[in-house]
């Protein structure tokens, strides 16, 4: 609750900051302060969860899970502001508005982690999506940015239409929007329910860019200003995943309902893993490679939706944290480089050893090497699928795909350490370096001792 209120208020506040503060670089500090306050306010919600979860008018349910996920999302946004906040001014004039839009997206994410009514799910998905269309097109003079915005907008609102149709069909079958009541009283499956579940699964797969609904992702992530891609590909994706997981775990898991969609989501997962990883191998631009890698990582997060147990819940939180922080770090380094191709990284270890080192740690985490957060994140989601049973083929496929992913992540490390070259790097401030080291510490600590996060559940 507090997270929702404070992030929405700070969104409005930052729009006013844009009117009164003329120095563009100092707006960043207002946003950082706002994120810190929202983080603290969110933790105050823990007192609401001391006796189980609190429900507000059957619309929002504040549970330990939602508070913890909000903490992860706001914390990752804080890291994002610290690392990428100074690059906002390069995109366009309206720096404060961009920060405001990001706060509004955060408000949507807090709704996505705590809805208990399909109306709030719809609003959450839309509050997350609409500011992103604006952010994707923020670079108004750049044609690639325009096209990314248009493509994202058309695809996004198309999938919203499908999501709404799913909601309407489920309402027709069950007569309620409350996610805990949808599955009740269904002795045998109503055909409308099945259609509704399928449509919602497809629409949410669009939003989290799972194959075969991923085709917009590389173009949009590549065309958008890099600083906003860093946010869209990380925190937003984790937020959409929480909505997906919450819906399917709470609404569609009771009784015989789950057996109707698990196989479909499993096939989507397999396709996502294969397409994401194999296509990423062939990319020359690191930004585009990261777009495909985000599809591949979505494949791993989908495991947390198939597996309906407590390990999956822990896994999705850990995955959201590990993936968001590591990807934001890599994007922050990418923002400092002039050339986004692999050759642009050549010889980075010689000229900027610290940047090369932190990028290596983040890439190792994305690949899932032990001692980094990515390892335990992958371990938890795969272990959840093994506990669920009947999905061993998918787990084996995922491990093989993780092996493929090592190849394209290590190509960047090879370029940095073993290839000669003089990369063009923008000036790096001490604060930026401190932020990077802070992110590395998060990644390593979560990789050694994941319970530091999971004990809160």
């Amino acid at each position, binding site marked *: 609750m507090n997270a929702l209120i404070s992030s929405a208020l700070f969104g409005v506040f930052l729009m006013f900051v844009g009117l009164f503060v003329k120095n563009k670089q100092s707006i960043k500090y207002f946003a950082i302060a706002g994120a810190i306050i929202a983080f603290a306010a969110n933790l105050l919600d823990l007192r609401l969860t001391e006796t189980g979860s609190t429900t507000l008018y059957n619309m929002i349910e504040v549970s330990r899970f939602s508070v913890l996920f909000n903490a992860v999302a706001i914390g990752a946004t804080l890291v994002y502001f610290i690392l990428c906040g100074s690059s906002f001014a390069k995109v366009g004039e309206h720096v404060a508005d961009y920060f405001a839009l990001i706060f509004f997206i955060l408000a949507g994410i807090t709704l996505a982690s705590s809805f208990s009514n399909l109306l709030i799910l719809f609003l959450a998905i839309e509050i997350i999506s609409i500011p992103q*269309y604006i952010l994707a097109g923020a670079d108004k003079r750049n*044609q690639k940015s325009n*096209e990314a*915005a248009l493509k994202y*907008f*058309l695809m996004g609102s198309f999938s919203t*239409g499908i999501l*709404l149709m799913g909601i309407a069909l489920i309402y027709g079958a069950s*007569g309620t929007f409350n996610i805990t009541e949808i599955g009740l009283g269904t002795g045998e499956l109503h055909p409308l329910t099945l259609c509704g579940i399928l449509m919602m699964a497809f629409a949410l797969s669009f939003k989290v860019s799972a194959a075969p609904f991923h085709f917009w992702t590389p*173009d949009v992530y590549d065309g958008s200003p890099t600083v906003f891609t860093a946010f869209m590909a990380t925190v937003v994706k984790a937020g959409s995943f929480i909505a997906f997981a919450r819906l399917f775990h709470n609404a569609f898991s009771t009784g015989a309902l789950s057996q109707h969609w698990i196989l479909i989501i499993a096939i989507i997962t397999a396709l996502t893993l294969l397409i994401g990883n194999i296509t990423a191998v062939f990319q020359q631009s690191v930004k585009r490679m990261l777009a495909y890698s985000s599809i591949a990582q979505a494949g791993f997060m989908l495991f947390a939706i198939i597996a309906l147990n407590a390990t999956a819940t822990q896994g999705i939180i850990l995955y959201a944290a590990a993936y968001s922080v590591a990807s934001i770090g890599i994007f922050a380094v990418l923002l400092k480089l002039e050339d986004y191709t692999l050759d642009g990284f050549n010889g980075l270890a010689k000229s900027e050893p610290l940047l090369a080192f932190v990028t290596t740690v983040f890439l190792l985490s994305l690949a899932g090497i032990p001692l980094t957060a990515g390892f335990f994140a992958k371990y938890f989601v795969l272990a959840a699928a093994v506990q669920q049973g009947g999905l061993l083929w998918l787990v084996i496929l995922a491990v093989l795909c993780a092996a493929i992913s090592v190849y394209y992540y290590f190509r960047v490390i090879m370029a940095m350490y073993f290839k000669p070259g003089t990369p063009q790097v923008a000036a790096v401030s001490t604060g930026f370096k401190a932020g990077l080291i802070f992110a590395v510490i998060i990644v390593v600590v979560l990789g050694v001792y994941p319970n530091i996060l999971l004990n809160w559940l």
Partner: protein
Amino acid sequence: MPVQYYIFLSIALFCIGVMGVLIRRNAIIIFMCIELMLNAVNLLLVAFSKMWVDAGRTDAASAQLFVFFVMVVAAAEVTVGLAVIVMMYRNSHSVDINILNRLKN
């Protein structure tokens, strides 16, 4: 009138919208088709609401409230969407989405 008529009508409208999005190449027309999809859903929600009222449910007005939220969100989407299309038209003097393929390279 039986509720089936409304269901068939709104599913027909929805399918026209989906086909329009998939087939047409003009961004404005695609946008209109998306609006058609949303309005088909609105019609369906209202019809279902009436159906559940007749079946004796007391909370069936929630579906009609949902329709208002869909309208508001659709209006917000129109604002952003038309702005994006206008921005696109200014830069490339076309609203044909075939030029979106340039991003692929």
